[in-house]
Every structure is written in structure tokens, then in C-alpha cells.
């Protein structure tokens, strides 16, 4: 029994030695996505390739199932383990179902991180969030303030009154509102993520607050409805619509001038950062530990919290200068 254990240990040691000699030539990092053929993830792969080009000795394996299932991802992970890749960076379809397969990968010496959509802490070394609640809260009011040099009344159009994410972001926004003198939040209304209700609430804001300068909507249904309501009222450009939205959904409203800028994560940066982190962890240049920092190339460094989560950066701001590059991506 002891003999076999030793044998296996030897085999593993041998294997990892062989691997490290292969590493010297080229490190193989697998970028595993929820499903192939989704614009958002194709863009992330573009970012990963950018990181690989910068690093020089990295090969990116962009892969994922054909539909967004945990079973499909488990198959992909198993085949990556068999291929003996050096690192797996995954956006998970299921927080828990992937844990055993990823544990197996880590047991074989593969660096495992999750990004975008996380895996439970025991199934990965760290998780990269695109942004953090406080960064989002700050960004949504900053975008309004940037276009309102003299300050003015702004209102928030949220999803439902009980939506957890939106409430946290609005709280975070209110915490930093003092940094933007002259900006008054006059109302917070709820569109329930329904187009018609959001549209009506936006109309209501315009009629009950004649001096309104901006509507901040941290939800993708709300921001589109608000932009349409402002346009229909003939106030595009007068009342600014900003918040969180997707470039494809907002492209027409940026064209019409109803929205000057809005934010959401940049998938290219996300793929880039995930690759850089995987590289640094696999190389041993950084370790995933609480309060530890891991380099992300041009994006600086990510700091981890107690559950090994880190936030990449401020949400990325989209405006007329870059929307056309992104509107077909996601």
C-alpha cells in the first residue's frame, strides 16, 4: 500500500516536472466560458489573446460547452485536465456543481480561478468580479456629475423596490454623493424592470421635477425605457440618461443624444485580467491569499478579500466614441 502511494507520488512528481519543463516553452491557459458563440465571451477571449500576446509565452485555449449547462462545463474541465493545461479560468454556469471537477483539477496542480460568474470558494483559488458595489455606486453618479458641471437635480429609476443589487448600488451611491457638490438626488422611483412601468415612471419624473437634469438607472431595462421616454418627450440632450446598460441595447439612445454615457463591465478587460491573474498564479509569481495582491498587467493589481474575491476595476464607461465598437459584441 505504502509502495503504491510512493509510486503514485513519484509519478505525480515526475509528471509535474515534465510539465514545468513544458511550461518553459509555453504556458497553456484555458479560458472556459458559459457557452460558445456568445458575444460577451468572444470579446473576453479577445482580451485573453491580448494578454497572451503581451506575455509572449502563453497559449490561450478558448473553450466552453455549446449550451449554458454545468454538465457541459464539467466535460470541458475533464478534457482540460486530461490535456494537462496549466491554468483554468472559468465563468461558471453553476456555483456548486463544478466544484468537484475543479477540485480534481487543482489536485493535479492546475491553477483554477473563476471570473464573471463565480464558483464556490472551495472550487477555485480566487474569483475575479468585474467590479465592486462601491465602485458601481460611485460610477453611476460620477457619470451624471461629469456632464453637469453646475450640478442639478437628478433622480434614480431603479428595478423593483426589493431588488438586492440595485438597492446596494443606490446605497453606495448615496454614501459618496457628498463628493459631487451640487448634485441633488430628488427622487428614487421603481420601474420593476418592466418597460411600460419604467417608461411611465420616467415620464412622471419629468413632469413632477421640471428642473430634472439627469435620470440614473442602474438596470438595463430601466435605462432603455428612460432614454426612450426622454426622447419621446423631446428632451434628448436636455435630460441626461445614464446608469448601467449594455452597448447593444443603448446604441440607438447614444446616437439620439438621450444618453451621453453609461457603464457596464468591459468583457475585453475581463478576459485580459483573468489571463494575467492565471499566468501570475501558475508561474508562482503571486499566491491567492486574503489581502494578497495579484498583478493584472495594464489594469494594475487586484486585492483579494477574505473569501478570495477581488474586483477588477471601475465599470467601463461607454459613450459615442466607443459604442460602435461594442454594440455588436454584447
Amino acid at each position, binding site marked *: 500500500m505504502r509502495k503504491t502511494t510512493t509510486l503514485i507520488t513519484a509519478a505525480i512528481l515526475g509528471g509535474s516536472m515534465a510539465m514545468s519543463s513544458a511550461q518553459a516553452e509555453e504556458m497553456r491557459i484555458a479560458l472556459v466560458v458559459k457557452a460558445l458563440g456568445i458575444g460577451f465571451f468572444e470579446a473576453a477571449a479577445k482580451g485573453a489573446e491580448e494578454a497572451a500576446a503581451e506575455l509572449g509565452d502563453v497559449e490561450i485555449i478558448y473553450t466552453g460547452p455549446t449550451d449554458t449547462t454545468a454538465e457541459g462545463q464539467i466535460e470541458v474541465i475533464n478534457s482540460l485536465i486530461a490535456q494537462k493545461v496549466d491554468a483554468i479560468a472559468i465563468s461558471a454556469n453553476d456555483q456548486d456543481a463544478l466544484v468537484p471537477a475543479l477540485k480534481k483539477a487543482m489536485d493535479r496542480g492546475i491553477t483554477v480561478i473563476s471570473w464573471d460568474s463565480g464558483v464556490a470558494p472551495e472550487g477555485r483559488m480566487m474569483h475575479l468580479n468585474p467590479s465592486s458595489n462601491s465602485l458601481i455606486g460611485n460610477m453611476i453618479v460620477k457619470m451624471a456629475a461629469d456632464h453637469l458641471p453646475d450640478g442639478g437635480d437628478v433622480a434614480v429609476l431603479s428595478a*423593483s*423596490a426589493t431588488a438586492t443589487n440595485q438597492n446596494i448600488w443606490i446605497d453606495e451611491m448615496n454614501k459618496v454623493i457628498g463628493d459631487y457638490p451640487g448634485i441633488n438626488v430628488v*427622487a428614487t*422611483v*421603481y420601474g*420593476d*424592470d*418592466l*418597460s*411600460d*412601468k419604467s*417608461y*411611465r*415612471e420616467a*415620464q*412622471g*419624473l419629468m*413632469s*413632477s421635477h421640471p428642473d430634472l437634469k439627469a435620470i440614473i438607472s442602474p438596470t438595463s431595462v430601466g435605462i*432603455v*425605457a428612460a432614454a*426612450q421616454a426622454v426622447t*419621446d418627450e423631446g428632451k434628448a440632450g436636455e435630460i441626461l440618461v445614464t446608469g448601467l446598460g449594455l452597448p*447593444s*441595447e443603448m*446604441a*440607438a*439612445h447614444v*446616437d439620439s443624444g438621450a444618453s451621453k454615457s453609461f457603464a457596464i463591465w468591459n468583457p475585453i478587460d475581463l478576459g485580459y485580467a483573468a489571463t494575467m491573474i492565471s499566468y501570475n498564479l501558475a508561474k508562482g509569481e503571486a499566491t491567492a491569499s486574503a489581502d494578497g495582491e495579484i498583478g493584472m498587467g495594464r489594469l494594475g493589481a487586484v486585492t483579494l478579500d477574505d473569501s478570495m474575491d477581488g474586483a477588477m476595476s471601475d465599470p467601463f464607461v461607454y459613450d459615442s466614441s466607443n459604442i460602435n465598437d461594442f*454594440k455588436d459584441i454584447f
Partner: protein
Amino acid sequence: MRHTVSRDLLLAFILLALVGLVSLRFPEFASVKSLSSVFNDTSILIILALGQMAVILTRCIDLSMASNLALVGMCTAMLNASVPGIPIPLLIVLAMVLGALLGSINGLLVWKLDIPPIVVTLGTLTIFRGVIFLISDGQWVNAHEMNPAFKALPRFDILGLPILSWAAIISIACSYILLNRTPLGRSLYAVGGNPNAAVYTGIDVGRSRFNAFVLSGVLSGLAGYLWVSRYAVAYVDIAAGFELDVVAACVIGGISIAGGMGSVAGAVLGALFLGVIKNALPVVNISPFWQQAISGCAIIAAVIFNARSERRPGRIILKQAENV
């Protein structure tokens, strides 16, 4: 008939009182501009309520209207995005035809298989939503993919009102003529009022119900185009839950769930009642939780009122012989 007229007048009076009450708090609400915008905003609900009314008259109910709207809306949006050359009037006709087809599925199941309409339309409600997901793959059709004419049509002003409002007005006129002046419309009342008697007068109950479902489908299809062009976006969840507003509008408007009773004016007033509440609540600035509670109370109050007014006194069939 006299009975419903007085009811409609009462509802109109309540509606005016409601507008007055809101304008106490927010004076601008009663301006012509604001009221016409309320009507415009309620147009889609009015169109759907007219279709629902036709179905309810025959003692049926159509819970699939909002899903029908969403499916047709998604189809027209996708069609417009991929073949921008199709003229918009043709697209609207296609939307109504598709809506009619979807409505006829409900109608056939109710007519030929005799399944209770609430079960049939509860089924198609989810089926239609599922189909939207299948054809769209969960993706949105966004404003920049629709061509300008597609989005501009419902906003185009004629005589001071946008076409969206005119669509509602034309639907009201057509429904009025259809329900009051044609054999088809009268048969809907007959079927709901007393199905047995309707059979004896030579009316096919099943076929009449089928017609009502097709009519509600046509109007849902029309509303589907109007919805996606008004909000300039189409996705799986558009108008989710809207079928309940439609039924509520009919109930408030005095359309009897027991069938056979109700007027076009009632359905329109019921829809406007909800529309005024929906548009007033954002400007009077009260908590969103109160908003839901207030809408709910209005519905219950209307139903209580309906139930009371519908309770007919017992009929004396045989009078006691009087002293001869």
C-alpha cells in the same frame, strides 16, 4: 342595456373624480397635454381590453393575451431587423394575422376539444413565452436594429394625437360596430347570456367562442407591434403579467365574468381607470408598495360593486292567484 349605460356613466363620473383628486395634488395632471398622454399610454391596454371583453362575453377568458402580444412583438421586431425593406403597414397586417393564428389555437382547443378556456389559455400563456425564447435565443432586439420608420409610426401625430392613440380609437369604433351592429357580435352576447337558448336560436356556441378568441388574437397582434415600437425594444419578458391588467380593466369596466353582459364603453372606461391610476401614482409621489395596494383596492372595490349590481332580484314565475 339601460342598466349598463347608467353603470358606464357612474364609472365615467368616478374617473373624472379621480382625475380631479390627482390634480388637487398635482395640478398639471388635468391639462389637455397630460390627459392625452395618459390616453396614449393607455391605448395598448384599451385595445387588449376590447379583445378580452369579446372573450369574456362568451363566458370564456383569455389569459394568453400578453404572451401573444410578446410573441407577435418579437416576431415583427425580428422581421424588421432582418428585412428592413418590408413596409410597416404590411408588417402591421402580418402582426394581426399572426395574432389571429395564435388566438385561433386557443379557440380551436376550446371549441373542438371542449377544454375549459382558463386551462387552455394558461397553457398557451407559457407556451407562447417559451416560443419567444426559442426564436430569439434569449437575445434582445434593440432600438438600433429596428429601422426608423418602424419606431416612428406610433409616434406620428395626426390631428394632435399620435397614431398609437388613433389605433385605440379605431379599435374602439370597430369593436362598437362589431359587437352592437353585426350578427357575429350579437351572437357573442347571446352565447354568454344563455348558451342553451343560443343553441335553440341556431347559434353555434363553440364557433362563436372561436370567433371571440380570434378577435382577441387580432387585437393582441396589433398591440404586439405597437408595444415593441413604442418602447423600441423586444425581449422575452415584455408585457409579462400584463394579462392581469387586461382582465382587471374588464372587471372594473363592468364586463360580467359570468358572460353576456358588458359594453365597449365599460371596457374602455375600465382601462382608462387603470391608466389614470398608473400614470397618477408616479407624479403624486407615494411609495411603490402603496401603489400596488391602491391598484388592488380599486379592483376589489369594482368587483364588489359589480357583484352587488348584478344580483338580480328573483323572478316571479307564477303569480299567486288573486281574489277572483
